[in-house]
């Protein structure tokens, strides 16, 4: 347990530049604290996150990859988030197929004004990944 506590996961957080980033700004404005080991990866739209980016992060050292953006119906580009959801479904099914921890990838919508939801998501995901432990792919040389 202690060991797990000490483990600081490397986490990438894919945020769209509208709601996802907005949520993080609102969290900041509300002075909410959240885990600092999150590296935001800002993209124009969740629909712009090709699963290959997520795979690359997981293979090269990330322990988890979360994606947040506008709620369904709110996408700045109308339908990017629906496409992101389809891509995430494909990616997670593949990770499941090959026993590669699909739970290291999360998709959760966060609206611009939802600072609390943003901070909660960061903390929950961080704890969840801590619980899972380090990503075995990250340490493999033969990838």
């Amino acid at each position, binding site marked *: 347990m202690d060991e797990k506590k000490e483990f600081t996961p490397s986490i990438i957080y894919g945020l769209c530049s509208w709601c996802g980033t907005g949520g993080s700004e609102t969290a900041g404005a509300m002075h909410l*604290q*959240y*885990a600092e080991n999150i590296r935001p990866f800002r993209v124009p739209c969740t629909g712009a996150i*090709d*699963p*290959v980016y997520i*795979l*690359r992060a997981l*293979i*090269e*050292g990330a322990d988890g990859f979360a994606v947040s953006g506008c709620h*369904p*119906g709110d996408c700045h580009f109308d*339908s990017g988030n*629906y*496409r992101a*959801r*389809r*891509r*995430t*479904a*494909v*990616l*997670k*099914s*593949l990770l*499941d*197929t*090959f*026993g*590669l921890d699909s739970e290291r990838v*999360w*998709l*959760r*919508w966060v609206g611009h004004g939802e600072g*609390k*939801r943003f*901070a*909660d*998501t960061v*903390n*929950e995901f961080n704890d969840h990944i801590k619980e899972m432990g380090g990503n*075995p*792919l*990250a*340490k*493999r*040389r*033969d*990838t």
Partner: protein
Amino acid sequence: MNKGLWIEGPIKKGILDFLNGLLADQKIKAVLMPAKNKGGDSYAWFLMEKNGMLDSADPAPPVMTTQGANVVSYLTKKGPVWEKTAVLLRPCEYRAVIELAKIKQVDLTNLVLISFDCPGAFPLEKYINGDPKKLDEIFDTCLEKQTELEGARNVCTICHRFSGTGADIEIGLIGGKGEGFWLVPGSRQGEELIEGVAGSKTDNLDVRENAISERTILQETKRNNMLDSFQETVMGPENLLNTLSSCINCHNCSRVCPICFCRECYFDSKALSSEADNILQRAQRKGGLRLPPDLLLFHLGRMTHMSLSCVSCGACEDACPADVPVSMLFALAGRNTQAVFEYEPGRSQDEAVPHTVFKFEELKDFETPYIKEYSKEQ
């Protein structure tokens, strides 16, 4: 619609006679199909007109050289053919053509797609380096009798979409006892072309249809069982990377894949080339690094891009110089990703590729719900 026509006699000859007849009557202008090379150990595709039919043309060759859908794409990528052209395709090639038509890499205008009940194909390498004459005989017997093709490629032994269903004209062998074949129209166009061809009209295809359903059930079970046990051998980082370990990163598998149509592939692009410095850092993090890198990224990434449309044609594995079970990996990946959308590549042109459409309410299982308030002081 006309149910079909029964033509008695030797199969390959009958098919060629049918095609020559269509050419002679000017119902079609050209035929695109494989023909044996002069050396006799392989096949290539030829576009042939009335007076140019090669004696060596073979509507159902024992190997798949270039995937037919790639050939059709070369032909029509920049616009349709001007005159009616018949194309002879294996069922998986036909399905790939349909997938490519959906994403505008094939223009179906004026094409007559003809497919047949396929017993499978030999691995290309085995054919070229083996005894082609003997393999031809084995194949032709299996084609006629519709028995299991011994020595077929793995992916063929678990094929569950072995008939030409959906094509403009389906050449029906299953249920024909090797005594002849049916020409079954799958479209108005197909029906018109069969009109007037010598043969006996059938209004009952029950024998054939029942035999197909029976075999489909058997093959589906076999496919699922085999993919399940294959999955056990590739699950987890250790197994998966061991399976891929002989890969030489040549990317042949994607180059020959009909579904990998992108002219510029991300995995061959500058996006993945980095400075030595960067590579050294990666090596440091991992305690060493296999080079060239991005082996797993290439295979898994390719799966995220195209496994939804993978038709299990096996072209990838035929092209692999390193014996990686690529087509089995993609068959497994495809089965599981396609199931999420209840999608079947090549089934119908009206079914959009799942990446290109969406529903407002769907896939909730893939979102992580925000159920509890996760506030606490860090």
